[in-house]
């Protein structure tokens, strides 16, 4: 038996790939819920969890030998994140059963109410009834991430969201009443036609509700989505780079003035309320992913499951755990990942910590490539800590491409 103090913390992500319908900007793996047997999917996820994290951990060694038993030994999840899709479109019994199974694996010998594991469920306003919320609370879910995206109904309908702002406010208040103290609200800016004033209005309406956490994402128009098609064919105006940049800078000033910390490019939290699960990604920590299209990062390896629901279920039911995309992560790659991810955060990267793990020379080499950005005010460097400035964060692709 591995002794408790030698266990390494990791994140646990569970993907629920179902939605009422696809939003117009979404290019993530999600399917219309009506065409699937969700109960069977949830059982498959539990089965996969037992294969990967259960008492009889059993990973089939991948053909190339990259993924082996050793990859998962000694890992102990300290955060759980059920994302999607929309996890809360599942009937409450199904999601409830899944949550219960997760607790059983994550804290097998303990009462979950006594541990300090961050347990997040993503939700959309239209799915959150009073009953649903109190059941989630009862089952030990302690953090909600609600997709709002805009406070204006014209943009909600442009984005294909199946809810209004009023419905969001109602479910938000219900969630607070149900005992959720840690609620994150997602917003998107840089929408076609959106003005700076409208975006400020979005921010002030959300700040008024005083959520503990706000994520503000600049819209990405991904090829193949309905929204990008609308823009490409000139039916909707293309968001202008300068305006979107102004929105970003406004977001930072409005939210920091309202007491939120800008702790990652797109994320803001009341002090101490940063999302632990996501911080683990940005610290280049380990995590296990369950369900279709879920990603994992383990010792020396990254992998992802198939995006096809049928294929996933059939494999797991046959007792096979074999992800589709497995790649070895060399120390050099771990190092550049640590830079790429770490630079997303306000904390940045600590050269001394990295040097202990990867050696002085390669760390100094990468840090050296960032020097030219210091001169133009995009990167700050002090006492072995390198971080992006507010301006650097919104130009982060340019900077990160340097450390590949």
């Amino acid at each position, binding site marked *: 038996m591995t002794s408790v103090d030698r266990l390494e913390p990791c*994140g646990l*992500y569970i*993907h629920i790939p179902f939605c009422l319908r696809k939003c117009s900007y979404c290019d*993530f793996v999600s399917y219309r819920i009506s065409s699937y047997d969700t109960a069977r999917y949830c059982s498959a996820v539990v089965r996969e969890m037992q294969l990967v994290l259960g008492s009889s951990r059993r990973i089939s060694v991948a053909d190339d030998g990259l993924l082996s038993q050793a990859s998962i030994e000694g890992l102990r999840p300290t955060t759980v994140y059920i*994302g999607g899709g929309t996890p809360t479109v599942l009937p409450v019994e199904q999601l409830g059963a899944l949550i219960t199974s997760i607790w059983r694996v994550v804290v097998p010998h303990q009462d979950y109410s006594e541990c300090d594991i961050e347990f997040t469920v993503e939700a959309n306003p239209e799915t959150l009834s009073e009953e649903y919320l109190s059941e989630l609370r009862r089952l030990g879910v302690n953090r909600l991430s609600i997709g709002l995206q805009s406070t204006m109904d014209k943009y909600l309908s442009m984005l294909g969201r199946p809810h209004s702002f009023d419905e969001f406010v109602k479910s938000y208040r219900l969630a607070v009443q149900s005992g959720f103290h840690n609620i994150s609200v997602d917003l998107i800016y840089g929408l076609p036609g959106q003005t700076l004033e409208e975006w400020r209005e979005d921010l002030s309406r959300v700040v008024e509700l005083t959520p503990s956490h706000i994520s503000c*994402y*600049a*819209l*990405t128009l991904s090829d193949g989505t309905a929204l990008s098609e609308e823009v490409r064919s000139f039916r909707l105006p293309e968001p202008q*780079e*300068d305006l*979107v*940049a102004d929105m*970003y800078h406004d977001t930072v000033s409005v939210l920091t003035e309202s007491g939120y910390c800008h702790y990652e*490019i*797109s994320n803001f939290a009341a002090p101490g309320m940063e999302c632990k699960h996501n911080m683990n*990604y940005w610290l280049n920590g380990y*995590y296990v*992913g369950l369900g279709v*299209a*879920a*990603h*994992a*990062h383990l010792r020396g390896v*990254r992998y*992802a499951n198939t995006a096809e629901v049928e294929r996933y279920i059939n494999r797991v039911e046959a007792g096979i755990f074999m992800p589709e*995309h497995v*790649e070895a992560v060399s120390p050099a790659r771990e190092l550049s*990942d640590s830079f*790429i*991810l770490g630079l*997303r955060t306000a904390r940045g990267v600590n050269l001394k910590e990295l040097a202990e793990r990867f050696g002085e020379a390669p760390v100094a080499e990468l840090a050296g490539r960032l020097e*030219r*950005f210091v001169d*133009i005010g*995009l990167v700050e460097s002090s006492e072995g800590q390198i971080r992006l400035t507010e301006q650097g*964060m*919104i*130009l*982060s*692709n*340019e900077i*990160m*491409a340097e450390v*590949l």
Partner: protein
Amino acid sequence: MDQSAIRNFCIIAHIDHGKSTLADRILENTGTVSEREMTNQVLDNMDLERERGITIKLKSVRLEYTSREGAKYLFNLIDTPGHVDFSYEVSRSLAACEGALLVVDATQGIEAQTLATAYMAMEHDLTLIPVINKIDLPSADPDRVKQEIEDILGLDASEALLVSAKTGQGVIEVLEAIANRIPPPTGDPASQLRALIFDSHYDSYRGAIAYVRVVDGVLTKGMRIRMMATGKEFEVTELGVFRPFMDHVDSLKTGEVGFVVASMRDVKDCLVGDTITDAQSPAPEPLPGYRRVKPMVYCGLYPSENNDYGELRAALEKLQLNDSALAFEPETSAALGYGFRCGFLGLLHMEVVQERLEREYDLDIVTTAPNVTYQVVTADGQEIEVDNPAKWPESVKVLSVREPFVRVSVVAPKDYVGAVMDVFTEKRGVYREMNFISPERAIIVYDTPLSEILVDFFDMVKSRTRGYASIDYEFDSYRESDLVKLEILINGRPVDALSVIVHRDKAQAMGRGLVSRLRKIIPRQMFDVPIQAAIGSRVIARETIKAKRKDVLAKCYGGDVTRKRKLLERQKEGKKRMKQLGNVEVPQDAFMAVLRVDGDE
């Protein structure tokens, strides 16, 4: 066959007036090729030519013809290139003939290139047989075309032949006219050998092959021959003719046309226009008309990836084996690295070479804007030739400058005469004359700087005449012009590959146009980038590319780091394809920006 039975001729025609189709019909009707062998248009065999509908390489075909009266003839059909860049080659092909078929489209009438070539044929005393083609088309108007031929060329059009090369109608009459109207070659069989090289071709097994017309004497296999212009000597290893496939012979007699193989390394060993003579018993005088072909247009060719330099050199060397007019020498640009300054006969020649480098040699190349050769007289009285803006002397040291002028003829419907003249005015043209070919169409002649027609002249004329105009030009003379070097500075640094030589009066507009074009082509950088146009130290135009403000992947979905890396890698890849000018990343398109700048943009 007797010298008196030989007829050497070529076909003069505008693009699309049916030269290739008529040649095909002639080949069929003389039994030279069976219909089965007849791939469409036998004489054009390069892909590029087929796509562009032009003939770049010329060849000859030997045909046997028995006339209606039962007399036997030996025809040599000599193909001529159909583009102005190759006018010297055209003149050498014409010099190998005694007659020419002047093919004119019955629906279109005479075009500028046809005119230029027809005049050239007349200068060589060729017998011209007017052939009015496409008479099967409903819109054919042979009478109008006859009138044009009489009015503008002064030929008797009453004997013009009415033909449809497509249906075969009138083709026999063409063959009869070749036999009856074109005179036989007049050379002296007893005299020392003089054979005119009218084309050459590089073959990887045989080396260079010369296409020749024996003017005097006899050329035999095994003979030691001398090239009279270069003095080089070779031994003839193969002689032959095309019917149209290669057929070996032991000798080529006076008046005959064929090919010569003689262990010549490349086409520089058998220059077009040179005279082949017998090394043991050389002719006292070469045939007239030889001249050394000089490039008219230059540009820089650079590999996109610096490490492809060696490959680019190897490819240019290979092309040169087959193209004596292509010149190149190594050049270094601060902006583009190591590359070559290449000289071409003209714009088409340049395009063909660029395309072959990309297509046949799979090279990714950056081309700088083309320029001509300037003659600069410096303050200390020296005269230098400048074929590269980078070598332009400092403005204070320039006393005077001469640039090449070409005589440009445009044939256009009368309604577009004004539009054509406007183009010439914009292009610094000097009016020469205008004549009406017919009541409906005029020929407009201007002397224009070659540099002005390099860029968008052809497109401008075509678009302002809705495609109804045809254009021809020939070198005229070097003339004095008030020219200056316009420099482009990116982020304060002059970029050598972007400098251009322009007329002082146009510098302002050109500078503004270039700067505004570059502002659109160069992506926003991490800082403000000023773009300036300057003459000497005087800045005449300036714009600023504002710093990039947003480039972020806002969301990192569910720990999918791989996807994010791929995105960044693509971004990095894109940067690699850019040229680094100081801190500024410039896409390769920028170096061609000059080509797309309209002075008044």
